[in-house]
């Protein structure tokens, strides 16, 4: 075919963003194409150094997620729940690169109804916005970074991102806020396997049993609190290595 670019095809015709296998064209005849161990289980995020963030960016994001979801006496905040670790690993992976999305130009500004049109990947968005936020803080608060200003100031800054009042060069503050809020919630409420929701603190907070797969005995027990603690894809907190 005239316009066929072989490299692009290889990159786009068989996406698997989570597993480790690579799909190739195949012929199936006579029996189901099933082999033991052929699945694509998710890869567990391990704690440790940042994969994407610089140390300064990591501090800023930990401070941001801990104001977006602040700690309270019963439930840890975004930082201790691992939201920044979750975001870091996502930005270092396919999500951060907009892998699988349509990224061909031309890029034009459309209406709200036409959806997001930015050429920036999430990783680029974070890199630019975090630098801008720290630069703003240093200029405004006597050389202090976002992580070092008072909580009340942090809240004002996040509020100004949400309304778009805090202008950032090269990145739309509202778009960044929306991305950050979405990612923070994903980290907080997603399975702990991705690095957030540490020890299933978010699920315990609301009473969500997580990856349990059978409520047959509970479907007709109405208006009764489900008594069992949550489990995740990799098990329960008590099973986790410390």
């Amino acid at each position, binding site marked *: *075919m005239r*316009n*066929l*670019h072989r490299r692009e*095809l*290889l990159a*786009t*015709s068989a*996406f698997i*963003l*989570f597993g480790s296998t690579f*799909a*190739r*064209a*195949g012929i*199936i*005849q*006579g*029996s*189901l*194409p*099933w082999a033991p161990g*052929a*699945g694509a289980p*998710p890869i567990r995020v391990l704690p440790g150094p940042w994969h994407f963030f610089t140390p300064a960016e990591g501090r800023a994001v930990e401070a941001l997620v801990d104001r977006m*979801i602040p700690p*309270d006496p019963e*439930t840890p905040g975004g930082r201790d729940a691992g939201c920044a670790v979750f975001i870091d690993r996502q930005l270092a992976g396919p999500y951060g690169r907009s892998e*699988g*999305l*349509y*990224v061909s130009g031309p890029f034009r500004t*459309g209406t709200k*109804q*036409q*959806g*997001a049109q930015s050429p920036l990947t999430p990783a680029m968005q974070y890199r630019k916005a975090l630098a801008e936020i720290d630069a703003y803080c240093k200029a405004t608060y006597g050389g202090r970074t976002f992580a070092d200003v008072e909580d009340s100031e942090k*809240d004002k800054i*996040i509020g100004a991102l*949400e309304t778009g009042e805090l202008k950032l060069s090269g990145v739309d503050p509202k778009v960044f806020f929306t991305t950050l809020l979405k990612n*923070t919630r*994903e980290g907080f*409420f*997603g*399975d702990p*396997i*991705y690095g957030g929701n540490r020890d299933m603190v*978010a699920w315990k907070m*609301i009473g*969500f*049993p997580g990856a349990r*797969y059978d*409520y*047959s005995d509970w*479907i*007709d027990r*109405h*208006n009764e609190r*489900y008594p069992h603690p949550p489990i995740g*894809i990799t098990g329960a907190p008590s099973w986790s290595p410390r």
Partner: protein
Amino acid sequence: MRKLPHKDVVIIGLGWTGSIMAHGLADAGLDVIAIERGPWRDTATDYPPSYAPDEYRYRIQHELFLRPAQTTFTFRNTMKQDALPIRSWGAFMPPNGVGGGGVHWNAEMWRFAPTDFVIKTHLTERYGEKFLPEDMTIQDWGVTYDEIEPYYDKFEYLCGTSGTAGNIKGQIMPGGNPFEGPRSRAYPTPAQKQPYNATLFAKAATDLGYKPFPQPSGNMSQAYTNPLGVEMGPCTFCGYCEWFGCGNYSKSSPQTTILPVLVRQQNFTARDNCEVTRILLDASGKRATGVVFVDTSGEEWEQPADMVLLCAYTIFNVQLLMLSGVGKIYDPVADEGTIGRNFTHQTVGTATGFFDPKKFIFNPFIASGAIGMCIDEFNSDNFDHGPLGFVGGGYMGQVQTNGRPIETTPVPPGTPTWGAKWKQAVKENYQSTVYSGSGVHGSFYSYRDVYLDLDPVYKDRLGRPLLRITMDLHDNELKMSAYLTDKYAEIIKAMGAQMVVKKPRTGPYDVAEYQTTHLCGGAIMGTDPKTSAVNRYLQSWDVPNLFVLGASSFPQNHGYNPTGTLAALAYWSLEAIKTQYLKNPGPLVHA
């Protein structure tokens, strides 16, 4: 381009309609090949219970869907705008891979109403021609409910559908939907058990004078062995249904109903990860000679065949017809051409009910995809539209499918989007809120300026023009959604909610906001080749050895989920091919 050995039938896309047609035609002795753009998918390898319940992977990151990088669409509300590409999915979720949308649907097993199939005639007779908006282009289907009833039945028995019949051969049955068309027999399995929120909805609806019934479900209420001998297990109400594959073999899908049998038929072959790029026509343009597809290494292949069955998702059917030069592309200004016309979606509204956390524990995570109690008083023409100034309607129900917390942590209006107050509100309301994403499942009738054509600017990875969607909501649909959502909110209120937040569909149509994946039309069926792409047997008017299956054939979208109807039409078309076409290949209808 390398040429492969000739086949009797080539099928493009191995989802519900492709599986049904492949099984039927292989069974009739034909040599059949199915070519599927995405990967082979199966329970054990792709969504086993050990990691299927993963909201981030499957719901948020769209693991089982097409990637926009493979191909996407451009979108605009009106003909005056420039269309822009859909860079990540929003309003609908195009499937990819063997099983198609049947892998990750909720399995809501509705039939359309008898009047839906003759809607233009029916509404004109009851309300007069002037009652319909001038630019509304609804049409009768060219097939009637009675004609396809046996095929609805066949699909429901293939799937083991769980439900309570409301009308068996004209006799109204207690506990079922009294408005449904007559069915030849009861559902194969009894209705699913219902959670607290659905039970409260049913009681409230009954108190208000409605007749609630359980939503017909492709999530099994009990173990079932279908007529092909394939076994399914009972649903465990895990709350990971729509957007997910079922790890329990409990949700009707090609994988759990047809494929294990189909793949053993020696005259059937499938190719996965191969994308058909065009249908080949002979010099006359009146006969398909096969298809061209491209594999993952970029190699192009020609697959010759006597018959071509186009069984992709709605909008890809339309795109492939346009790119292959089958029929004439619709021009809304001249009102000419058939490919791309009468494109529709759904008009979904809902209302969220906040209840007293001290008194109500709903355990919203205990659910299935097609669970819930519904009413049908405001669907189709079951109510008098005369004083209301609109046509169409929808079913409504407490049909909450999940309590997965990234998506489903509703908070009352006025709550900040972050911070301590947000966190507290999430905690307080999680267990005591009812929220059905598609609580009011409204129709979307067709209009002259809602259509598909080829985008002049943006291309896919193969260099082909993207399909362009021009779509907006018209006043008729907005009025309908507002009226129905009010009625729905009254029921939620009567359930005992402290606060009800109404969310009728409002315009303009937003391609970033999820409604349903029920895109319909664009290659519609009908009786007139000037205003339809396929005849009543889904046979192309232009190329008689080409059949186009799926919801692309719906002349407009009605107030129910489409899969039951598109599967019934597949069986109806299959029967016509087997009993008429194979004996005498050529047009089955002479217009």
